[in-house]
């Protein structure tokens, strides 16, 4: 899932200050799971903004809304009238949701209410951790199912750096050294022979380094005829 954090309230308040009518739109997908931009967080943010405005004597109108998946046009369409009747959309989805609204209504302002962080997983209640950088060429079958590119601060492909103490990362002592974890996992799996095979220079062209990525599945695309038919139904 995509893990995000809400921006600090003051930053949001400054961002939206010039606009009278603000539609605050959350998302029920990833950002709801990471407690950043689901229905509850949208409502809490709107209340906090109203309280702040009351204290500071500012008049603004806020509407709290939430869609199923803000990165998909069909769900955004459901709140189109609310978007168009507002002066500003404050998206409480990840940046993908905010950009979807922006792309659908390019003459309408849509600002981000969240800082989008990473591809990660919920580890326990209230804890999310990064486990993938989307490099486009997965190698975790060689590393005990643990991604060293996202989980090592230096994205090392051939073992641990010389800075690790107590099997923790030198950059953040609360985080396990990815290569200590890989070692343990491979040992458990009886695959320690893997640690001495050299992983050569990685081809980063499948990652963002190769430019913006667009994946196309020709067999899944609609023909122009099908597209027309679908538009007619809508």
């Amino acid at each position, binding site marked *: 899932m995509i893990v995000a954090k809400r921006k600090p309230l003051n930053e949001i308040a400054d961002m939206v200050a010039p606009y009278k009518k603000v539609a605050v739109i959350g998302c029920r997908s990833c950002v709801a799971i990471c407690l950043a931009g689901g229905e509850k967080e949208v409502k809490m943010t709107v209340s906090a903004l109203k309280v702040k405005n009351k204290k500071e004597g500012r008049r603004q109108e806020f509407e709290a809304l939430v869609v199923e998946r803000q990165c998909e046009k069909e769900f955004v369409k459901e709140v189109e009238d609310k978007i168009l009747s507002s002066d500003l959309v404050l998206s409480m989805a990840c940046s993908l949701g905010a950009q979807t609204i922006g792309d659908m209504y390019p003459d309408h302002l849509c600002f981000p209410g969240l800082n989008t962080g990473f591809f990660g997983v919920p580890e326990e209640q209230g804890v999310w951790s990064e486990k993938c950088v989307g490099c486009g060429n997965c190698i975790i079958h060689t590393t005990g199912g643990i991604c060293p590119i996202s989980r090592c601060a230096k994205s090392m492909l051939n073992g641990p750096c010389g800075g690790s103490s107590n099997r923790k990362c*030198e950059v953040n002592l609360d985080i396990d050294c990815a290569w200590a974890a890989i070692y343990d996992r491979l040992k458990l799996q009886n695959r320690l022979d893997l640690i*001495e095979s050299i992983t050569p220079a990685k081809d980063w062209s499948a990652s963002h380094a190769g430019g913006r990525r667009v994946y196309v599945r020709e067999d899944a695309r609609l023909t122009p005829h099908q597209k027309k038919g679908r538009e007619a139904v809508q």
Partner: protein
Amino acid sequence: MKAGSNLEKVLESGKFAVTAEIGPPQSANPEPLEHHAKMMKGFADAFNLTDNQTAVVRLSSIASAVIIMRESVEPVIQMTCRDRNRIALQSDLLGASALGVKNVLCLTGDHQTFGNEKGAKNVFDFDSVVELQVFDALRREGRQVGGEVIKDPPKVYLGCAENPFATPYEFRVSRLAKKVAAGADFCQTQAIFDMNMFEKWMDEVRARGLDKKVHILAGVIPMKSAGAARYMKNKVPGMIVPNEIVDRMKNAKDAKEEGVKLCVEQIEHLKAVKGVHGVHIMAVAWEEIVPKVAELAGLLPRPKSE
């Protein structure tokens, strides 16, 4: 001879090598480098020029190398993967070789959050193992990592670092084995304070026959004060400083003298460890002490370079 450097000649002829470290200044002033080169000339076979160590911006290691070569002192340039991608690393290797640099130490590099540009974007296109592998192919076959074969490849003697004291310990000999397989000719270790632990690591290194494939230079740091010992014990990632050493520095009447004495004892000890082919003296911000340490440890005179 791969590069024909003085360090290569000393090591390949089976002599006990000495390297030391010069930290480039945080300025555009070449004088500290010239000063240290003049002062330490003849007291070690080659001198490492650190590459923005601990991610603090300093005069570049390649430029520093050229400055000390003007004083007829041989450099080992450190090249980290933190700040340069494969285009820049290969380009700088060609450039360094063209300028007459013959020894290169391949390092992954300290993370930028330790330095004075914490907001920097790091690169880490390679890690040190890949860097070695790429540089080795470039020097042997003139083949770049992207496949292009070039004329007049760089002539360099390649080194690596290894830290027997960082976790996971079980990985440390394997890590050296990978660096050797990737093309390392010599290896400078992290500073050794825990001799037992180092010897255990060396036992395993010898058992794997790695000491026959790579020249191991044992790292030492002469300490100026008890504070330095405590700092290294508590603050430097992946370093082990036993309590006895901290106490010895703390109880010393003259800490500097004790630091030198300790370092000399450590070198004497390391000289006797089978498979150790030299020492690497890292007198961090205390370069002035290197001649004395070298002399008292019986490392002089250094073999004459032709």
